[in-house]
């Protein structure tokens, strides 16, 4: 095999993998169209004033949520990157946890802190100030910032980590003041990651459902996703649901393309975090500022977890843990999560290797770039395809060939796997790109192909980020609920599903206990997988 064949195989495999993922999503939609014989009428939908008003709100809340998440993440990432203190790594790991929480658990935890009777309101009331009233756009923003600002901060910290070591050394030696360091070193690094981070968060917020309704304060706060759910689940109008979904996909694609044009780093990326050594000139004021920002930022992110911990500890944890139903649900969740994370890792890696093969091809051309950008966009867009629709489509398709309840786990695994892809691509992509930039030419020169190239070029670069990616997608699927709801059956109950079931039947304390268990298991999983995969941590220099 020569390197050309090798490249072709890589590109072919990656495109196949991406098509499989997209086929899974779009196939679901297609089946729904064919089976229910309801073609979506997008034009009519766009003429509907109700649809237009929720379209406006969807974009406004997603845009503002993205703006606040990103803007607040910048000082936090800068402070976290500069400051050196014990516990930095656990904090950075904790920053991935909001994404792994079932949304309702996270939303109620946010309310415990920021609600009318929340901790902050109690504090304000104690000193004679009015209580907070977050319901409305502000509540949606607080919750979205809680879920997404830490994610953006991690993306930015990783971008800062990719600055060459000499950059920090020079900044230190030249005694550059904080603002000059920002201007010459930090901002250029952040700017590269900005479009990717913003696009990711925008997509996550566009599809927001539970947060928007619970914290929105009324039906003025309605997103397209709510309308999709309403159309499919409540009005049983698949045509309308698909039409709304198409509007959502097209709209987000436009935003994605815009970010692609804005920045050269569409996918952004985040690494293991906290590795770069900096030598900033001593500056008490800046250090104090950093300390304050880190403390406030961490408090903001951690306080809802503290709420989950406190209310969880009030539950009868021992009884819960010894319940067969809980154990079975936890085992099911673990299996689903492990399978989904593995599948997602496999598919994403294939796509990423194809992207790199296309990037470093001998004859760069527009067609190649087109395919590459197509692959990059495809791996992101999956986030805005409503799982309800995909689930319904596959439900119909699978009915023709098999027992649906038996197939449900596979659909759930596949959905979770596809939904984790955008995150994995962002975690592993930058490392792979760097490795191919550094040793790609060497591999070409030596004629390394196939397994050898993988072993010497790709694998060493991907090992650590893959560990993080695996841990993260494990956590994402472990806490995911969306995909399961449609198939729900007593034979197939996951931990988040069990949690919502208990919440839905007055068992609030049990639900709080399960939320704590879910959170703890997630943290454990993430830590364990990262350690087991990547080996013992090298001491930081």
């Amino acid at each position, binding site marked *: 095999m020569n390197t050309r064949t090798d490249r072709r195989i890589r590109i072919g495999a990656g495109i196949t993998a991406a098509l499989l993922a997209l086929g899974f999503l779009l196939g679901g939609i297609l089946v729904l169209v064919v089976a229910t014989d309801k073609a979506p009428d997008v034009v009519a939908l766009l003429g509907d004033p109700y649809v237009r008003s929720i379209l406006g709100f969807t974009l406004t809340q997603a845009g503002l949520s993205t703006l606040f998440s990103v803007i607040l993440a910048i000082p936090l990432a800068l402070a976290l990157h500069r400051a050196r203190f014990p516990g930095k790594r656990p904090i950075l790991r904790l920053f991935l946890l909001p994404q792994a929480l079932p949304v309702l658990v996270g939303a*109620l935890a946010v309310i415990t802190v920021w609600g009318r*009777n929340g901790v902050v309101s109690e504090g304000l009331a104690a000193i004679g100030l009015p209580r907070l009233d977050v319901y409305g756009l502000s509540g949606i923003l607080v919750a979205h910032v809680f879920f997404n600002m830490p994610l953006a901060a991690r993306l930015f910290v990783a971008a800062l980590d990719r600055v060459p070591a000499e950059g920090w050394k020079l900044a230190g030696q030249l005694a550059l003041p904080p603002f000059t360091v920002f201007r010459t070193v930090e901002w250029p690094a952040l700017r590269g990651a900005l479009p990717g981070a913003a696009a990711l968060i925008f997509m996550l917020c566009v599809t927001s*459902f539970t947060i928007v309704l619970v914290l929105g304060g009324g039906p003025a706060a309605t997103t397209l996703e709510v309308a999709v759910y309403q159309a499919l*689940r409540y009005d049983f109008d698949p045509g309308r649901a698909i039409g709304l979904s198409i509007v959502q996909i097209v709209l987000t694609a436009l935003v994605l393309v815009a970010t692609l044009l804005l920045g050269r780093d569409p996918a952004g990326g985040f690494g293991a975090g906290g590795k770069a050594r900096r030598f900033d000139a001593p500056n008490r004021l800046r250090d104090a500022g950093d300390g304050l920002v880190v403390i406030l930022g961490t408090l903001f992110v951690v306080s809802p977890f503290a709420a989950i911990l406190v209310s969880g500890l009030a539950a009868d944890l021992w009884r819960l843990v010894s319940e067969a139903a809980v154990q079975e649900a936890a085992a099911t969740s673990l299996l689903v999560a*492990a399978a989904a994370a593995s599948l997602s890792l496999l598919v994403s890696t294939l796509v990423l290797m194809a992207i790199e093969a296309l990037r470093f091809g001998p004859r760069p051309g527009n067609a190649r770039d087109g395919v590459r950008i197509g692959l990059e966009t495809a791996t992101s867009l999956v986030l805005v395809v409503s799982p309800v629709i995909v689930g319904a489509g596959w439900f119909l398709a699978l009915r023709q060939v098999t027992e649906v309840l038996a197939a449900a786990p596979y659909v759930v695994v596949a959905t979770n796997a596809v939904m984790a892809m955008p995150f994995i691509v962002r975690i592993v992509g930058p490392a792979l790109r760097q490795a191919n930039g550094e040793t790609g030419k060497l591999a070409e020169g030596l004629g390394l192909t196939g397994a050898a190239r993988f072993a010497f070029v790709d694998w060493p670069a991907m090992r650590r980020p893959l560990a993080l990616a695996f841990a993260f997608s494990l956590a994402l699927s472990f806490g995911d609920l969306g995909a399961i709801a449609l198939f729900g059956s007593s034979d197939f109950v996951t931990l988040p599903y069990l949690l919502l*079931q208990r*919440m839905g039947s*007055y068992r609030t304390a049990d639900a709080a206990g399960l939320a704590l268990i879910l959170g703890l298991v997630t943290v454990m999983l993430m830590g364990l997988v990262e350690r087991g*995969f990547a080996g013992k941590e090298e001491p930081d220099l």
Partner: protein
Amino acid sequence: MPQLLRPFLRFSPLIATALAAVAALTGGAAAQAGDRPTLTVYTYDSFSAEWGPGPKLKQAFEANCDCTLDFVGLEDGVAILNRLKLEGPSTKADVALGLTSDLIPEAKATGMFTDSRVDLSELEVPTGFSDPVFVPYDYSYLAFVYDSESVENPPKSLADLVSGDPDQKIAIEDPRTSTPGLGFLLWMKAVYGDEAAARWEELRPRILTVTPGWSEAYGLFTKGEVPIVLSYTTSPAYHAIEEGTDRYKAAGFAEGQYLQIEVAGVLKETPHAELARTFLSFLVGKEAQAILPTTNWTLPVRDDIDLPEAFSDLVSVDRPLLIDPETVAKNRRAWTDEWLQAVGAR
């Protein structure tokens, strides 16, 4: 558990875990043996949950039927109907249990149900109920439940609620996505008719938030975020019996409470039609009806059931309100739009 996983994660995470998952997932689906007939009942998941009525009913029914009773728990009544629509005539379900009476016209329109042949004349359903296809097996009244520790003067009527202190917040459910939400919309309509929109506008400042489902609203309530929540008259019975507290109480309204009747029906294509009918008769029989109140937290459709003491403390409803399902089906869209206008415009 994680300790067990660790070795394989270290060596070959992709293959090992994927294989383990496939093995475990297929294993469960394979066996479903025996020559006894299996009666498959689609229901909502809190009905089939281990603390719900499902397991007890299964035990009681299987004791005499020489069959297997299999509950499939879905999200709610709407989800059951959607599932049936998706599956069409080849559905595995023999019985659908857990639709609210509002859904009857839509359910009948699928043409998938057949007459129950269950005698309903002995049943005690408020406002009366007769239908050849669907069997009412329990009911409940919507009510605003309040926290007696923070609400000193609970509303005594819907008018009280509507015109009450806007600083005393309430949480309600969204009629677009939830059954109690739609129920409250109908309640307002039943009491105020054409003036409903104006009353909604009056109520609007009091509404803290409109949640997608009952769980979210009730979660806000038990967290102390709102002192009053839209739930059921039976909610206090749960807290009294399971938690031993009488802190949470339901407010009885002078205009009456809106009624929610839950029904079950037999699917036309079922191969076990007789068994299905036997099950529905069993469901409204004394044994099953005695199980429902303290597991499903609803009221029985027979008057010869001994209810726990906590139930006698519940709001007694003199004026049950119900808009007939046909009218609801015809107007739901328009009424929802009217509600959106009244509550949504800012």
